């Protein structure tokens, strides 16, 4: 069942009520939590719950705020596993790498490209990109930054031993690198490659002198974690914390904080409690259950932005119209003899049967936006007139009847239960909504480790999954709805095996179009096709949320990265 939203009231009244209700609420939450934990076995262990109540108590506790600190203590929810910027492509690692290293092309908080170590770049020929490098940049150890370091970095990408997920894909399109002068470099590609600047936003530059023969262990020990970035590593205690001091020579604005303590506090409840207790100044991944109360806390600031992570349903496109889909049967549990998901009317019916607003407002407590396409407004190739499909259960029943399923059918909806915010609960809500229009849905939620393997082997008929995009439509398109192809490297996350030759042909063109305007038009056409054909069923785009003490402000990033350079002392009031 969807949780009942507490009716709004004035904040003072709400605070009073919360304070008085605390012990009961906490008990309830706490015991609910044990049940969850048992059900999840060794899932994401104990997730937050009791915290909602903790914050309410804290309201009563009150307390004076400290002055703008010289040390910033941050608590992050996901552990950082390595300081090697090219070892594991993983958001928490990338966030920390961004504090130590710089990239040729940076992205701002809205994921728009900005000059970084390169001051400008342009395509000087159909297959040649030229980057002008910023002069007078030095690494933390004084070594000068030149084009040679760029070459060295790109050569290292495919050669990091034992990397479980490498950055090699960003150097692969480049067939030759040409150093024109120490501050100018040209990349030659085999075919026109418009995404090269975007790729460069993922490559952190290291130093050819310092890092010759550098190993991942060397970076992890902190000794070789030397970049050009705004912070230098003082100490790395793996799985616990990273201590930074600021780089006073940083070219793009020196941090107001002398020191940054970057701590990994993976338990949601503990992280929020530590913020309330004053042990942390800043936290990320604020649990949605605590959001309303943290907003009311006078001692705290919340920063948030619509992110780039779409939650959607993948559907079985692999089985032909006359084959059985693995987890679909007729209403008596017998094989159906056909795959209803191959009929666009059925897919559309399943999409409009979902009340997205109910999910985002109640289940997600407002921390998500209903979606009808891959990217949020304001990004390259977002289509303004493709809206989130409106909730229309009657229309869904009509469409199902038209498609020959007046009495519906039975389906199993699979979902992870420890991966995305409220993942299993969203799946349950969708299951109930589908059942309401006649598609009797059984929901099965599993730990991500099991789920992702089975989804990748096409064992599911319908499944809930998420996608964190680059801010360019071609990224989700080639990975989620492009036909799986080893040669082109497409369809890496096309777990439903969607395939549309017309769409593929257009995507082929878009991926070699250097004119950004034309390219965007093509991507918009592809997005329209995908929405029309209901290739996947988008549900919502998550909101990224951070919480901090009142004397701090933060530029909320759409890419979810938690970095100290985005935090500033608040202007004095």
């Amino acid at each position, binding site marked *: 069942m969807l949780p009942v939203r507490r009716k709004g009231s004035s904040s003072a009244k709400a605070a009073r009520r919360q304070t008085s209700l605390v012990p009961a609420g*906490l008990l309830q939450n*706490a015991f609910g939590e*044990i049940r969850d934990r048992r059900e999840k076995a*060794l*899932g*994401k*262990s*104990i997730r937050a719950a009791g*915290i909602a*109540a*903790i914050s309410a*108590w804290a309201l009563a*506790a009150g307390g004076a705020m400290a002055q703008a600190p010289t040390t910033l203590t941050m*608590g992050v929810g996901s552990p950082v*596993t*390595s300081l090697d910027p090219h*070892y*594991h*492509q993983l958001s928490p690692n990338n966030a920390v790498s961004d504090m130590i290293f710089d990239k040729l092309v940076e992205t701002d908080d809205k994921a728009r490209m900005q000059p970084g170590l390169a001051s400008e770049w342009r395509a000087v020929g159909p297959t040649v990109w030229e980057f002008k490098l910023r002069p007078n940049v030095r690494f933390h150890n004084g070594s000068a930054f030149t084009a040679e370091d760029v070459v060295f970095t790109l050569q290292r990408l495919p050669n990091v031993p*034992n*990397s*479980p*997920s*490498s950055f*090699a*894909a960003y150097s*692969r399109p480049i067939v030759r690198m040409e150093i024109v002068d120490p501050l100018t470099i040209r990349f030659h590609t085999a075919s026109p490659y418009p995404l090269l600047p975007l790729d460069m936003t993922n490559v952190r530059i290291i130093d050819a002198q310092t890092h010759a023969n550098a190993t991942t*262990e060397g970076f*992890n020990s902190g000794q070789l974690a030397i970049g050009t970035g705004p912070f230098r590593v003082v100490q790395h205690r*793996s*799985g*616990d914390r990273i201590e930074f001091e600021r780089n006073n020579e940083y070219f793009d604005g020196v941090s107001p904080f002398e020191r940054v303590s970057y*701590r990994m*506090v*993976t*338990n949601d*409840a*503990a*992280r929020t*409690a*530590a913020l309330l*207790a*004053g*042990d*942390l100044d800043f936290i990320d991944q604020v649990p949605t259950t605590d959001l309303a109360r943290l907003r009311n806390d006078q001692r705290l600031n919340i920063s948030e932005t619509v992110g780039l992570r779409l939650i959607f349903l993948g559907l079985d496109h692999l089985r032909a119209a006359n084959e059985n889909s693995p987890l679909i049967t007729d209403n008596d549990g017998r094989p159906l003899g056909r795959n209803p998901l191959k009929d666009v009317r059925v897919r559309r019916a399943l999409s409009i049967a979902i009340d997205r607003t109910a999910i985002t407002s109640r289940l997600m407590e407002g921390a998500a936006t209903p979606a009808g396409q891959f990217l949020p407004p304001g990004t390259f190739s977002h289509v303004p007139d493709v809206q989130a499909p409106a909730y229309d259960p009657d229309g869904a029943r009509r469409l199902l009847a038209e498609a020959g399923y007046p009495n519906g059918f039975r389906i199993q909806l699979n979902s992870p239960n420890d991966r995305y915010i409220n993942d299993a609960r969203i799946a349950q809500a969708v299951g109930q909504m589908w059942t309401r229009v006649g598609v009797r849905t059984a929901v099965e939620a599993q*730990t*991500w*480790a*099991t789920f*992702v*393997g*089975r989804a*990748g082997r096409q064992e599911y008929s319908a499944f809930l999954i998420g996608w*964190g995009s680059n801010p360019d439509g071609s*990224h989700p398109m080639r*990975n989620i709805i492009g036909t799986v192809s*080893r040669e082109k*490297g497409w369809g*890496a*996350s096309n777990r439903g095996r969607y395939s549309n030759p017309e769409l593929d042909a257009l995507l082929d063109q878009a991926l070699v179009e250097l004119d950004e305007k034309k390219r965007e038009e093509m991507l918009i056409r592809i997005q329209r096709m995908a929405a029309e054909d209901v290739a996947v069923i988008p549900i919502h785009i998550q909101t990224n949320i951070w919480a901090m003490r009142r004397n701090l402000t933060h530029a909320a990033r759409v890419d979810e990265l938690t970095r100290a350079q985005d935090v500033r002392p608040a202007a004095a009031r």
Partner: protein
Amino acid sequence: MSVYLLRRLIQALGVVFAMSVIVFIGVYAIGDPVEILISPDADQIERERAVRALGLDLPLWQQYLVFLGKALRGDLGNSFVFNEPALQLILQRMPATLELAIAATFGAVLIGLPLGLYAGLRPNSVGSKAIMAGSILGFSLPTFWVGLMLIMVFAVQLGWLPSTGRGDTAEFLGLQWSFLTLDGLSHLLMPALNLALFKISLVIRLTRAGVRETMLMDYVKFARAKGLSPFRVTFVHVFKNILIPVVTVTGLEFGSTIAFSVVTESIFAWPGMGKLIIDSINVLDRPVIVAYLMIIVLLFITINLIVDLTYSLLDPRVRLEGK
């Protein structure tokens, strides 16, 4: 005695071997580490590279043989996630966990024994009834809830104690310890108390039951009839005899505190082994899981051995040679 030790050692090796086989098959059955670790936009070429890099391209039995070969040379493999030797990763985090477990167990015995003794000697007094009622709470309240309550009261409300992390450490015997600094001690207090609560209750109940039973024994009656002082009766004749179950349970509890203090460690963000193993299981970091469980098996076997040796010290009737 040496035959006994040798036999225990062979048993231990057998258990370790069996455990490693089970974990290998178990992790294989759960899922594919590459699917979890790899970036979702990695293409097929990158996937194949990652599979090879992690040594997962071989059939399972060959992977196991490779592991076994290396293990015999003392190398339990590199963590998929950290690219550091699994053994080293675990040993780095071990002092934090050991410290917590020792503090909790020590606290449990220090608080539990006297209270249990009192409750056993004066079963009908108000004080001992209060102790027994309290021990029921200690038993039945879930650790993480108590942990959150502790944080709420002592860190959020009163602001006396820090809510998270390990605090300052000082080096001793080449390792970092919290209990040597004031800041470290203040960080240690709440998590240790949280872990100890259950054990305190356990020790209280065991001690009380033991005392009540022993007090009725003939030798105690005789000692009293002989005119020995109540002090001597309690601490020589009664106390020694009730220690065997207490030692057994404390030993086993100590082991499980080290191995499974996951909940407390994650609530207090204590950088110990428990957090490591949970994170490793979530991403199917097999080398770490295998190495961790091997260490835990060895740990339990060692603790059991020490418990057995303690028996023979406490009770001369216990012989270790067996048949």
